[in-house]
């Protein structure tokens, strides 16, 4: 197996403590970054081709480049630690096990975008990660890594921990800003983009926890080294969240572009019951269209390869289903989530997410009617691209994929008025 980068401290003794982190070379990248100009940092991260690990895969350096170089108002960095995508649990691991890595990446990134205040927004349910991060911030503050005149460099950076209160939508970057401002988490229209008018109307960059954890390594080892990991335009190490019917579920680190079945078979130990065959895999969290067992062969797990297969890497929440799984019921679970979590701001989403859930729930319960699948697909088409944020797409795209790829199962459910799969 290749060298562990992001997870190198995870699972080691005292990994959350500053002293341990420093002993393993921690905060050296911050020292180096503080001697480097913000623009040079942005250039280096651009060159490295780091793409956002929150789901969209937007180039981080480019995003940073949108921030004002001579700011007249305060600039802010928001750390998106509102990890809530079903099937995703990597940011939680980083915060619980290696909070100083997250913090070091955060401080370097704040310097790169000239932000003197950082807000770390942690989802409300993650109390342990929140407290672990908070303890790390206090430890770092006592050693002069956080606050005024960091390590005598003249650079200031204050870090504020902020706790959410239970709302998936707040992981959407503009909803996150609204929530931080003390409001309901309703996504904002873009433009203006956050770099122009973000939190408190000021220039803002929002970065995911895992994205920031990559930054110290790029600063320390250089863009050239980083480009050597992964595939073209999909560089760097990646955390894959492996769950479902696996022998060894968990978070695994591997380069971007690692074949899906390598992750399933070699990393996660293969399917949990050897007598059963693979049926389907959701490769990138609940928002990602499902892949059939056939499609799972030869899929490099990176942003572009999955887009080419009309799915997405998303947050790399890989949920594996064996042949005992009823796809109608699996989709019902996914859609129940979206119906529950729609913020209710846009009609196509508020009504659509609930509607498609009701249809699938009805089919699952044995009350499906002829034409239900057509209605569902037509509702999906009236959700996609018709709302302020991409939540509606995130609900409709997996629904379409399940119904089109496993149509026979849906039709049999409707015809028989019950599930036709043998009892597991």
């Amino acid at each position, binding site marked *: 197996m290749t060298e562990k980068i992001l997870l190198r401290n995870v699972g080691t003794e005292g990994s959350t403590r500053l002293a341990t982190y420093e002993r393993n070379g921690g905060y050296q990248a911050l020292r180096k970054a503080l001697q480097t100009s913000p623009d040079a940092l942005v250039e280096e991260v651009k060159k490295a081709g780091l793409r956002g690990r929150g789901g969209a895969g937007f180039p981080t350096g480019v995003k940073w480049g949108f921030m004002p170089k001579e700011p007249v108002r305060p600039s802010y960095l928001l750390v998106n630690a509102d990890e809530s995508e079903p099937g995703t649990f990597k940011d939680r691991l980083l915060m619980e096990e290696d909070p100083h890595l997250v913090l070091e990446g955060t401080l370097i990134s704040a310097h790169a975008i000239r932000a003197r205040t950082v807000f770390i927004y942690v989802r409300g349910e993650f109390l342990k990660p929140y407290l672990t991060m908070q303890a790390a911030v206090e430890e770092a503050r006592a050693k002069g890594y956080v606050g005024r005149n960091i390590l005598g460099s003249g650079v200031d950076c204050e870090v504020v921990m902020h706790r959410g209160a239970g709302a998936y939508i707040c992981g959407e970057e503009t909803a996150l800003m609204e929530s931080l401002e003390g409001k309901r988490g309703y996504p904002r229209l873009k433009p203006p983009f956050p770099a122009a008018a973000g939190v408190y109307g000021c220039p803002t960059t929002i970065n995911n926890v895992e994205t920031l954890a990559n930054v110290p390594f790029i600063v320390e080892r250089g863009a050239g080294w980083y480009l050597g990991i992964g595939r073209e335009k999909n560089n760097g190490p990646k955390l894959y969240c492996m*769950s479902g019917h696996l022998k060894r579920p968990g*978070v695994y680190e591997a380069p971007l572009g690692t074949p899906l079945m390598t992750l399933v078979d070699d990393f996660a130990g293969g399917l949990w019951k050897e007598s059963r065959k693979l049926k389907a895999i959701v490769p990138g969290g609940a928002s990602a269209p499902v892949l059939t067992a056939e499609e799972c062969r030869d899929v490099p797990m990176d942003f572009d390869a999955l887009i080419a297969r009309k799915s997405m890497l998303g947050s790399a929440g890989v949920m594996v289903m064996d042949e005992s799984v009823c796809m109608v019921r699996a989709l019902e679970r996914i859609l*129940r989530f979206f119906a529950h979590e729609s913020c209710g701001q846009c009609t196509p989403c508020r009504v659509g997410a609930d509607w498609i859930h009701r249809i699938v729930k009805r089919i699952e319960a044995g009350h499906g009617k002829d034409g239900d699948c057509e209605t569902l697909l037509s509702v999906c088409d009236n959700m996609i691209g018709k709302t302020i944020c991409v939540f509606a797409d995130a609900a409709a795209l997996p629904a379409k994929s399940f119904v089109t790829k496993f149509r026979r199962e849906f039709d049999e459910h409707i015809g028989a008025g019950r599930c036709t799969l043998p009892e597991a």
Partner: protein
Amino acid sequence: MSGRKAGTGGLTVIPENPREIRGMVPESIALRGPAGPEGIEPDEGKSLSAASLAEIDRLIDIYPERRSALLPALWVAQREQGFVGRRPMEEIAAKIGVSPAFVASVVSFYTMYQIRPIGKYLIQICTSLACYLRGSDALVDHVRKKLGVDLGGTTRDGRFTLVRVECLGSCGTAPMLQLNDDYHENLSPLSKVDELLDSLE
């Protein structure tokens, strides 16, 4: 129970659960307190303690705008009283400089704020896809039977409130539940849940 015409395109909805016929009540609220859909109105609650009010003042000073302290202030109130009642909402509204209605609208948006007393132990079981694949439904059934309480309900002795929740980010260690603030993971076989619940006071 008969079906009804839903507002969404005239679909006939056959409710399996009487709550559903109310349709307009989002599940997050329906499953919130012991009173279910009737419980949208918050309880009165008590005035916040001087210590909590001072803590809220300190929080307000942290942020560039006062309103950012709203979610943290609500956490302070909930920690003190176990839920956020009408009176704390009003006090927080006055401190932050927004209307009580605004505070109530924020409280109702987020699933983690309780608006009336719940059991001493809040059990939240994740039944999203990854947990479902690892047997979360059996876990729900088991806890329901063991405690003799339905989803959204509180046991008669006021000790346990049971709710079903969406993904808690514990998919690699499914099935799981959250007991008050703490995660309990890898709850298979179900005897582990018995051990956990039996160990509580």
